[in-house]
């Protein structure tokens, strides 16, 4: 099967992301990358856990964090994970338009999450927590900010794929690209689950 062959729903394979050698390689390479990302975030989590009480007279986590904003952010990101699952469901059914629609919803939810995070950081700076206020502040902004940067990158990645392939439709050349981008998006949610638990919820019990 040629990668750029025009396919129909009948001829589209069951696992389009792994139907070509390139797709198989992307799939494996991407999971290897996610193993590395796990280590990257672990080092940031470890630093945060070691330094989270070192506030150097600046604001502490239980003074700053508000449950409502974290809860809304969590729901937005969690829902965006489901909408990207829907996108991959339509990809497997060779329904390009619906896949694009659900990817678009995913991007909107992700952008709302990012906007909320920017607002949150802005608030914290106004309450006296800047990057250099304390060891807690640096560890917090680095960990949550690195996650936010991943969200921003993921949004640009998915948008680029959507625009680049808007007229091309779905084939075995771009199916692995969409699949891998959706894996990245889920991984961002995996990291967020630990951030809302370890940073925010644990920060609120003191």
């Amino acid at each position, binding site marked *: 099967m040629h990668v750029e062959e025009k396919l129909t729903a*009948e001829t589209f394979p069951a696992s389009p992301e792994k139907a070509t050698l390139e797709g198989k390689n992307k799939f494996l390479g991407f999971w290897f990358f996610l193993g590395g990302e796990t280590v990257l*975030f672990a*080092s940031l989590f470890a630093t945060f856990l070691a330094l989270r009480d*070192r506030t150097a007279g600046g604001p502490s986590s239980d003074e700053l964090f508000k449950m409502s904003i974290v809860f809304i952010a*969590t729901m937005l990101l969690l829902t965006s994970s489901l909408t990207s699952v829907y996108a991959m469901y339509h990809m497997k059914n060779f329904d390009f338009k619906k896949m694009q629609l659900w990817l678009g919803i995913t991007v909107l939810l992700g952008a709302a999450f990012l906007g909320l995070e920017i607002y949150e950081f802005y608030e914290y700076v106004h309450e006296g927590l800047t990057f250099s206020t304390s060891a807690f502040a640096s560890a917090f902004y680095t960990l949550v900010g690195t996650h936010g940067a991943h969200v921003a990158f993921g949004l640009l990645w998915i948008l680029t794929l959507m625009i680049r392939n808007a007229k091309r439709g779905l084939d075995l050349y771009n199916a692995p690209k969409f699949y891998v981008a959706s894996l990245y998006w*889920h991984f961002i949610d995996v990291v967020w*689950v630990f951030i809302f*638990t370890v940073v925010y919820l644990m920060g609120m019990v003191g």
Partner: protein
Amino acid sequence: MAQHTNSGNPNVDLAYRRKKNAEDMKHQVISFALMIFLTLVAFFAIGYDKFSPWFSVPFILLLAIVQVGFQLYYFMHMSHKGHELPALFLYSGVFVAFLTIWAFMTIVWW
């Protein structure tokens, strides 16, 4: 990957695959509902201040691990065949992650 279910009739195969995908999607929606539920329980456990942190902290960590399991095995399809190497890569990362966090929490004291 070759189609294991090749009946020679593409329409039959398509109907079978669509049905299988739809079933898969149902499992995904169920895991999503469970993940939302686990998140609500975690927020409630912290918001309800009658629980001691000695209970609520390990409890919400456990909920987070379960929720990540749903994310990995359902949303990221690790429960499907052909994910042996992804699991090796990911768990190697998790192993190093565990060592790093353990080290930082025990040797950093300033």
